[in-house]
Every structure is written in C-alpha cells, then in structure tokens.
C-alpha cells in the first residue's frame, strides 16, 4: 500500500517537477517568428505604404487647390485610388496603434466608414466645421474624400474645388487621414518589440488580436462590402447597390479583390511561418489547410467572374456573380473561424473571462 501510494504521488506530481528534465527537443510552433514575420513583412509595410500614399494624396490636393485643372484633378484622383488600394491591406491590421483605444475606434471605423452620408458631409462643410469633434464617422475618412473628389462630372468637382468650404473640408479630411496613417505607421515601429515579444495565446495577446482582426475583416468583407449592397442582410427589403464601398469612384470590385488578396496572403504567410504553417504544425492541420486552399481557389475564381466593372452596376444588372462570391466566402467562414481557432487553441472572444 505504502509503495502504491508513493508511486501514485510521484505520478501526480510529475507534471510539476518535469521542468528539471529538459528531455528531447521540443517541436512547438514558434509564434515569435510568426509575429516578427507579420510585423516586418505585412503590417509595417502596409502602414508605411498607406502613409506614403496618403502623404502624396495630400500634396496633390494642395497642388490642385492652388492651380485647379482637369489634369491635376486626374492625378489627384489617381492618387486617391492608390490610397484606396493600399487601404485594403492596412485595414486588416487594426492592432496595436491601429486598435481601438479610449474614444478612438479601430482604424477601419475611424478612417474607412462607408457608406458616407452626403447630407452630413455637406452640413459640416457648409458650416465650415472641420473639427471632427463628433461621432459622425460617416462624414469623414477615406470615403468622404472620395465623395468630394468623384461625385458628379469632372467639371462639377473642379467647380466644387473652387469653392472655399468644400476645398477646406476636403483638405481637412485629407490632412486628418494623412496624419492619422502617419501616426500609426510611426507608432508601429515602436510597438513592434512589444508585439513580437508577447507570444502568449490568451485573450488580448498579439496572436489572438491579429487573428480576431483577420476574422473581423473577412466577415466585414462578406457582410458589408458584398452582403449589404446585395440586400442579403436580414431586414433589407431589396438590393441597395448605392451602399457599395467606393461608390463614387466605382472601384469597389478592385477593392474587394485587393482585400481578399491581402487576407489570403496574411493567412498564407510564407513557407516557414504564418498561420498556414502554424496550422500545419498542429494536429490535423493538413486537412484544414487543404480544405481552406481549395475553397480559396474557388473564391478567387468567383472574384474574377465578377469582372472589373462597377459593383453597383453589376448588382443592378445581374447580381448572380456577386451572390455566388458571397456564397463561397460564406462557405469558407467556418474554416477561418471555428476550425482554425479550435486547432490552434485561440480564443474568439476579446476579453478574458472565467472558464472551466
């Protein structure tokens, strides 16, 4: 009996004293290098490009304000379009300095709310209120700029730019966008070490935040960039093509394609690290990776099938390709959401709680 007792106690206590025994080499996945990869190859470049493009947009805007001409306007619009594409990548990384903090919402909400309210924009513009000291996020950001730059004919826009209130408001919008993206890019440089150094997987850890933002962006793309204008959301009585992202420039499909590309590139990482490699390193990960990759190829094909025209026109004329894309995105949701979080032991909730 005594011996049995000792053996049992030893077995029970084993988990506690195991650290003295370094044993065979460990084969755990190195989240530190994954985070470093994401910080250096994905996140920082994305914020840098966005910030640079925003700076260029602002300079061109000042140029147009000084000397309005159709050529200048064309260049200004091209600069906005470049910002729009860079935005698609940066917007999936609302982490660290781009995350919600106090009254400031996530970067995507602060700078990228759509659809914008033309009425609110015109109200603030006419009142000369460029303080942005309000919660009308649909009166500012990237798509408020787009409204002022693209709504109407070229002549309309040039005419608008000739008027002080609109010019001032647009300049203020651009300046805010420029300074905010610049702040995030700069602060990320300082935040990097904290981000890379914390390899925990608890709620609120960089890995979990990154994963949750990835999920939010993916579901946002499906639900808001497609589902909303298609009228697929509960409570909608019909398609609402005017609610596409980038309505005025008509570049919604290019934006969707670019963001999907960014999401996939993020999930993929490179051969040695990233969420794909992380999955491959876990029990049963190969099968999930295969399933996900097969579905991603279908999604890519569906994006191509939507063409390169305007999404709002597509929805009005023949929405089927867009509906099909939505359906295939939906089919992939579970791979990104429950299957992936289960395999990696990551939590989908944002705050910690009790558990058992």
């Amino acid at each position, binding site marked *: 009996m005594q011996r049995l007792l000792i053996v*049992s*106690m030893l077995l029970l*206590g084993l988990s506690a004293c*195991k650290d003295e025994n370094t044993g065979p080499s460990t084969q755990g996945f190195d989240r530190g290098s994954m985070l470093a990869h994401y910080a250096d190859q994905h996140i920082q470049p994305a914020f840098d490009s966005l910030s640079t493009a925003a700076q260029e947009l602002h300079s061109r805007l000042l140029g147009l304000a000084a000397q309005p001409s159709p050529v200048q306007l064309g260049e200004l619009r091209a600069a906005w379009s470049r910002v729009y594409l860079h935005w698609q990548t940066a917007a999936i990384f609302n982490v660290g300095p781009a995350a919600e903090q106090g009254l400031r919402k996530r970067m995507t909400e602060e700078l990228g709310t759509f659809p914008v309210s033309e009425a609110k924009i015109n109200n603030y513009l006419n009142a000369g209120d460029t303080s942005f000291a309000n919660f009308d996020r649909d009166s500012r950001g990237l798509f408020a700029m787009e409204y002022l730059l693209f709504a109407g004919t070229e002549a309309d826009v040039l005419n608008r730019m000739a008027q002080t209130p609109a010019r001032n408001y647009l300049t203020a919008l651009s300046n805010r966008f420029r300074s905010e993206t610049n702040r995030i890019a700069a602060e990320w440089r300082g935040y990097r070490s904290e981000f890379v150094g914390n390899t925990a997987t608890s709620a609120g850890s960089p890995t979990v935040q990154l994963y949750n933002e990835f999920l939010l962006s993916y579901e946002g793309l499906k639900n808001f960039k497609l589902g909303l204008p298609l009228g697929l*959301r*509960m409570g909608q009585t019909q398609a609402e093509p005017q609610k596409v992202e980038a309505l005025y420039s008509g570049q919604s499909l290019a934006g969707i394609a670019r963001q999907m590309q960014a999401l996939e590139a993020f999930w993929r990482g490179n051969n040695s690290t990233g969420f794909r490699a992380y999955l491959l390193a876990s029990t049963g990960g190969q099968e999930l990776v295969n399933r996900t990759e097969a579905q991603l190829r279908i999604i890519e094909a569906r994006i191509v099938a939507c063409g390169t025209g305007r999404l709002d026109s597509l929805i009005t004329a023949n929405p089927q390709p867009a509906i099909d894309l939505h359906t295939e995105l939906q089919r992939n949701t579970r791979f990104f959401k*429950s299957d992936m979080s289960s395999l990696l*032991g990551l939590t989908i*909730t944002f705050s910690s*709680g009790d558990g058992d």
Partner: protein
Amino acid sequence: MEVLRQAYRSLWLPASPAPLATLRIVTGLVMLVGSLRFWAKGWIEDNLLAAQMQFKYSGFEWVQMPPADWMLYVIFGSMVLASVGVMLGYRYRLSAWLLWGSFTYIELLDLTWYLNHYYFISLLLLLLALLPAHRHLSLDVKLGRVQALASVPGWMVALPRWQMGILYVYAGLAKIQSDWLIQALPMRLWLPAHNHEPLLGPLFGWHYTPWLFSWAGMLYDCTIPFWLSWKKSRPWAYLTVIVFHALTGWLFQIGMFPVVMMAITLVFFEAAAHENWQKRFFGIWALPRGTLLQTARLWVWLMAGYLAFQLLFPWRFVLYPGNFFWTEAGYRFGWRVMLMEKAGTATFYVTRADNGREGEVDNAEFLLPHQEKQMAMQPDMLVQYAHWLAAHYEKQGIPVAKVRAEVYITLQGKPSQLYFHPQLNLLTLNHRDFPAWLYPAP
C-alpha cells in the same frame, strides 16, 4: 469492511464544528474576492448589461434581468455584503441565504456563462446556508446571538467533503474515455499554445506531454478525495491540490476556480488541524465549547436525498441516444470539465412571411462574442436564438415565417461537419427537447 463500518458509525458521532467554521470563512472570503473581482473587471457591464438577450436554462426561463441596470449593482452589492457576513458569521442565516440567492440568480441569468464551478459554488452555498456553520468561531456566537456548539453530528462535516468528492471523482470518471486517454484530446490541441511560457514552455511543445497531462489529470481527479481523506497521505495530497490547481489555473483561462478549490479542499483536514490554526489566529476562545447539536431524522433523510440526487443526476446522459459531446444532452451539471474542444460557425437566415424574402443575420449585431461562441455549438441555444430572432423582427413589424441556420461544428479539432439540415425551420423546435434533429455525430 471494518473501515466502512467505522466510517458509517462516525456519521452519527459528535464531531468538532471547526472544519465547518473554516469552510464558512474561506468560502466567504473567496466569494468576497470573486464578486469584487467580477465587478472591478467591468464584467457586470461587459458580460451582463451589454447583452441584448439572455439564453435561458431549461426550467428557469422565468429568471429575467432586473428591470433597471442599477438593480444589478444592488444585487452585486448584497453579494459583497453577504460574503462578508458569511465570512464573519454575522447574521449568518440571512447572509448565507442572501449570498446563495444572489449568486445563483446571477448564474441563472444567462446560460452562455454556465460553468461547472459556478454550479459547484451554488451547491456549496446552499449546503452552507443549511448547515450550522456559524455556531463556532463567529460574530453571532461572540455577540451572543446564537449558542456556541461543542460538536455537530459527523455527517454535517462529511457532507461538504462528499460534495467535493463527487465533483472530483465524476470529473475523473468522465476522463476515462478514448478521446482523453488514448488520443490525449483536447490536451493535444490546447497545450502547444503554451509553448511560450517561461520555464515549463518547452515541455508543452513536447510530443508526449498531452498524454502525461491527460493521464495525470484523470488519476488525480479520480483519486484525490481518497488521498485527502486518509490521514497519512493528506499533507502530500493537499500539496498536489495546490500544484495541480496552480498549474491548470496558469495554463487555462479558469479565473478564480483554482483558488476556490484550494480553499474548499481544506475541509478535508481533520478537526484537530482546524482547531489548531483557529487557535493560532483567534486565540483561546476559538476552541469549540457549548452544547452538543442533535438533529432531527428528517434532516438526515433530506441530506441523503440530496446526495443521492448528486450521485445520480450526472448520469442522466445515458438516457439519451448518441454521442453526448455532439448533442450535449445531459452534459451540463455533470462535472465534465475540459473534456472537449468544440466550436461552431452558425449563420442564421430569416424568411419573411409577407414576401418570402430571406435575409442573413449578422450575429455580432445581437450577441456578445462570448454568447455567439457558445450559442454556435449548443443545440438548445441555437433554438433559443432562432426564437429570439423571430420575436425581435416581429417586434419591428416584420412577420417571420421561418428561421433556419447553417451550422458547422468542429469537435476535438476534427474537420467541421454540418450539424443539422440547413433548411430545418428552428421555430418548430423547443429548446427543452432532446435535439433529435441533429445529424449523427461524425
């Protein structure tokens, strides 16, 4: 046999009330810390007030959120005060019932926050409210409000020990199955996520660690009440209680639970040990004296009935067909902890009765992330949510003909499977019924 006979006889012999007093004090303390912690972390707002809907316990659908937000703070306030009352043994019966009532009320508010250890605390508080835990080392005694006891019947001290024993042994028995022991699931999924931890980190990346943890956990749960009951092994057993719960508390998000278990298991120590430390802390007056408590036979029968219920209720799952990880029929209230990694992705579609148009629901619009996570994998919650959605849209003037859901479930990290037919109208179902409408487990 002689051991058993002796144990049986000791149930009727007078026993020192000191262990019960310790139990009362540590429980009050843990509840005080726990409720203040819940409050301080902002969980009253984030977990309860922020929710637009609550999922109900079968049979407790009548438990509602208080009509005004401030009342919830009043309830938490009384929980804090009652914890202090229980700890000090001040106006004990009132404090203990208030503590049990307020805590249980909060737990019953929303099924998505169900935890085995909350259920355990509710049971423990109920036992404490019934037992005379305040008639030794309490303010009530000191103030002359009640008469001190020199002894209580042995079964009164045994009761909380048995309750703990059931918890542990049932948690252990639930682990004797192939997923846990042979596949080392879900440990194999959970442990690698901790390979970054200092000191023990590399261990969690080691291939065999999940098996080590699974087997050690099973043996620990199945046998620890016995090691704690046997005088010779008790100090060592208590040491493993500390190590085991500290380890699991450090690895998994289980909040106060490890502290609760470390505190409550103290009740296993023999009366002399309790009297000793009580004397050290509170001086000579802490020694039991006064009258001998005799109890009516009725109480004994009631407590025997309670124990029989505790022994039988967790087995109700055998009455249901199918894999109970999949159906979760009879899964709750059975001390099944950490047994499975289960997750779901649930997309709901609502069909209007007027024009037949179907719309997709964005769950994030109505549910907290935690609620969505729990709802998406548990049949009774899926049904409740469908009914809630219908009522919600009806209230907005949208007549609803059908609510269906496409739900994919992944169990133990295996590829996700469709949970049930995606065209099934969930409005035709009742959340109390056995979910016979699920597809068979993969």
